[in-house]
């Protein structure tokens, strides 16, 4: 799922395409090869994108990231992917597995009212436990997996029903 960023009133998608041999990202339709030199997390740092080097200072304050790049200042709106999806209004009712795994435990029950970001179930995948959260507010319509059962990529895990306004 792409990360959504807003700048000058327009939203862009940033997605990871590949990591090796170089970090390869997509910003809307633009492919970007990225080298960021380590800077200990501090500003300034240098970032090289498609061979073009930029001097960057940045500071985050909640959902805003202030950036100074090549002599100009910008304010970028950033929402973590889950909340962005939850607030977009287009989030699906169907929560499907994006990769094969196993259900560790259910954290929500049939008929529960859930808010965006509430935990639905814990799965194990690639030797990591991951909490799957509600992409938006709703009621648990149905649960299609049980603890200690495995699932394939694309399996429907939970179905939400929209809350009637």
């Amino acid at each position, binding site marked *: 799922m792409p990360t959504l960023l807003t700048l000058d009133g327009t939203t862009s998608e940033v997605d990871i395409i590949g990591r090796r041999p170089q970090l390869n990202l997509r910003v809307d339709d633009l492919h*970007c090869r990225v080298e960021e030199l380590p800077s200990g997390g501090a500003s300034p740092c240098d970032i090289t994108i498609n061979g073009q080097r930029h001097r960057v200072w940045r500071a985050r304050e909640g959902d805003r990231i202030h950036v100074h790049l090549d002599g100009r200042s910008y304010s970028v709106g950033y929402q973590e992917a889950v909340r962005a999806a939850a607030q977009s209004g287009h989030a699906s009712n169907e929560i499907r597995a994006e990769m094969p795994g196993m259900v560790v435990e259910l954290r929500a029950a049939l008929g529960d009212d859930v808010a965006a970001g509430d935990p639905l179930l814990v799965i194990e995948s690639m030797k990591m436990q991951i909490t799957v959260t509600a*992409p938006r507010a709703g009621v648990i319509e149905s649960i299609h997996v049980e603890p200690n059962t495995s699932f394939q990529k694309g399996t429907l895990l939970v179905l939400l029903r929209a809350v009637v306004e």
Partner: protein
Amino acid sequence: MLKNVLIANRGEIACRIIRTLKEMGIASTAVYHFADRGAPHVAAADHAIELTALVPTAAYLDTAQLLAAARTAGADAIHPGYGFLAENAVFAAAVEAAGLVFIGPQPEVIRLMGDKILAREFAVAQGLPVAPSCQQDGTLAEFVAQASAIGFPLLIKAAAGGGGKGMSIVRSAEELPARASTASSEALRYFADGRVYAERYIERPRHIEVQIFGDGQGHVVHLFERECSVQRRFQKIIEESPAPNLPVALRDRICAAAVQLAAAAGYRNAGTVEFILAPDGEFYFLEMNTRLQVEHPVTEFVTGLDLVELQLRLAGGEACTLQQRDIAQTGHAFECRICAEQPEHDFRPATGRVAILEPPQGPGVRFDGGLRVGLPVTAAFDSMLAKLITHAPTRAESAARMRAALAELVLLGVDHNVDYLGRIFAHPEFLAGRLHTGFVVEQAEQLVAEPLTPAVRAAVLLAAVLGTDEFSRLAYECPEPHASIGHWRN
């Protein structure tokens, strides 16, 4: 010689005054409201005394508390800076009545120049040119009739005020009654004095002002002119000295008029006489500011004089030995006011917290600020955060220096006008010195930022998102398959 000066102010001007006090070996006493307890002027001063008030600005306006603080600190003088009580005659008189030195003009001179109508009459009596005008001395309806007789366009403003409050341009008789009424109610709200004043509005006027310094005994010198025509919402954002494209003979006449006015008033300490310059070369007295100006650094750069030092020496009882022939104007200086605001949204004030501050450095570059990392920028105080000043042999070189310095300045955590100022310094009309007070409005379309190219936009977005823990973990640390479940969190 003064021993201990209390600064009845905050922010950049308090820091700037403290710097000269340190150089002269005079102790400094800062005052602050709780909201400013972490501000640099508090840390910079030798002593700091907290003032209490429900509203932060009220603390800096509280005469009784300021005088008590001066007594507590053992201060022998008070420097008011600019704004707050700097042009308050009652305060100046109270300071003197308490046996302290007020670093500024005599209270009666402040009172005279603070009243736009009295000041104008005084200027007329000294033979200074003034624009045709009328003042409200009866009802608003009578004022409207008198103002219409001057002719249009008219500038309507508060009799008691400054800073653009209650000011508007009226272009026809039809709109005059409503605009006069609005101006009057704004004047009442801001200055507790509803009287309004109208004068002939000069199209494409320039704002030229003269820095003067007087000893209070009739000896007055000028420190040349400043051009302050680049304004937004009637407030200056760029000042420079010398004024571009101003014939020397005309410049000399304007400076002489300023000296004449100040000498007639027996003016003491630093002051500024403001003029409107019409495209035909006629100039008119506008007002006199009886204090140190925000833009005094451009004068300091071109004259090599420290205005605060001059103020402190005179206040400390030294004779003013400065003669006109000793004062020269060398090179060209610009000042930019760095404000917390959004130029793209009609300069709406912005708030935030200073996260990163990297002032520019180098020869001919001066950064006057009262900022530090972590400092909140709130709506409680004026939106001006700092001033960037450059000096170079020519106007073109000084402008190039300013443009580079603006790009070098890193200030993150609050929206500001630095990039906007940079666009002004790239504007051909500005660089040609063809200025007037409507410049910012007239050139608004040319001063909008160009849309970003996709490559620059991508660079900004990637610089932003790669700085977040969440995304950089996905990008650099996760094994490949996990990246695609980035929105699942463990």
